[in-house]
């Protein structure tokens, strides 16, 4: 008899709790209902250094505006909204995934994944990039359409010690690399690496290293070197990039070779090494073993030029002590 009055409030409390949990469960279910979202790339594969357009399609049940959030573990997303571009410039071949979610402010969609394969295309007809030289006169802009843009840069007018190195590098440039006009008779611009040398004045018909050095455009070289991390006030330097290098720096991958401490008689071998490097598809990735061998060779060359100086000084000391 005494148990009934106690049981009623307990039963009521249980009922209320049950109803509350049911109603909150229904509410949570409605909030967790993801927005419908689909996504796709305009192509399933891209060549090395390529870009792909990503698209997402979502729909808000309430007709509200959607906000898309793109996420990529590698590369870079350009743009915003339902359609963006995914730049895969610095990646090796492989499969990469991008994800996107959409939100209308009240609910969010599930993550939608897009997989894109970066492929290594075979070089057309198995040929590598060929380098052609061209003088870059003061005020003249680079011509569009080349596969690669390279520059032979001198950071400052030559000192007594660097003059010979400059001359040897320019001699190698003139002797080893064919003129751009002659190569364009046989090859399309897209397959050429145009190797510019900035000068002032009108070049003579018979171009020499001496004329080129005397008429070198140091101001333009400084403006091109400005965007690089080091001050680079010696030289010669070789800079290569996919696009013409502007004052604001290089966009995308680039190759920078510093020939400042290369003994003059080895300058030609470094220019040759650059030509091989530029011929590669991924020209900006230096071949480590080759670079190491070149540096060792340069160090031996420097020691070779220092040996007579040291020997002379040592002989002087020995004579003086005796």
């Amino acid at each position, binding site marked *: 008899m005494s148990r009934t009055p106690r049981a009623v409030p307990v039963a009521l409390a249980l009922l209320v709790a049950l109803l509350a949990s049911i109603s909150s469960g229904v509410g949570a279910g409605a909030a967790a209902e993801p927005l419908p979202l689909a996504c796709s790339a305009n192509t399933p594969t891209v060549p090395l250094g390529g870009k792909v357009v990503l698209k997402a399609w979502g729909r808000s049940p309430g007709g509200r505006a959607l906000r898309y959030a793109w996420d990529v573990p590698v590369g870079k997303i350009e743009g915003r909204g339902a359609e963006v571009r995914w730049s895969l410039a610095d990646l090796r071949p492989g499969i990469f995934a991008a994800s996107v979610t959409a939100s209308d402010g009240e609910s969010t969609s599930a993550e939608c994944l897009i997989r894109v394969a970066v492929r290594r295309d075979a070089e057309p007809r198995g040929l590598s990039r060929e380098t052609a030289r061209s003088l870059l006169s003061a005020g003249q802009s680079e011509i569009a359409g080349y596969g690669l843009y390279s520059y032979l840069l001198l950071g400052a007018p030559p000192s007594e010690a660097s003059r010979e190195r400059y001359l040897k590098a320019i001699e190698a440039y003139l002797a080893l690399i064919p003129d751009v006009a002659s190569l364009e008779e046989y090859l399309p611009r897209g397959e050429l690496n145009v190797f510019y040398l900035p000068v002032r004045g009108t070049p003579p018909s018979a171009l020499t290293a001496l004329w080129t050095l005397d008429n070198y455009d140091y101001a333009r070289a400084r403006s091109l070197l400005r965007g690089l991390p080091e001050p680079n006030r010696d030289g010669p330097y070789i800079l290569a990039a996919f696009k013409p290098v502007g004052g604001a720096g290089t966009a995308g991958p680039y190759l920078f070779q510093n020939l400042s401490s290369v003994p003059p008689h080895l300058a030609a071998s470094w220019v040759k090494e650059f030509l091989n490097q530029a011929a590669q598809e991924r020209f900006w990735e230096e071949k480590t073993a080759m670079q190491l061998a070149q540096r060792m060779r340069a160090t031996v060359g420097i020691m070779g030029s*220092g040996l007579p100086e040291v020997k002379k000084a040592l002989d002087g000391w020995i004579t003086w002590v005796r």
Partner: protein
Amino acid sequence: MKGSVGIVAVIGALSLVVWTAAYIFNPSTPLTQAETVIVVGVCAVLVFGFKWVVSSIAKMRGGNEPHS
């Protein structure tokens, strides 16, 4: 005689390393002949100093050994 040839070779090698390093760090102004003479002199002082320290330590150790 053998020892002095070795010392001269070490001084020469050390001087050459310094000359090469100076060239690599500042290729537009390598060491002049007068500067090279100074480098060789400094290297000689270092090598003879090192030799003197090593022989002094060896003598000290020899002097501390118990005599029978």
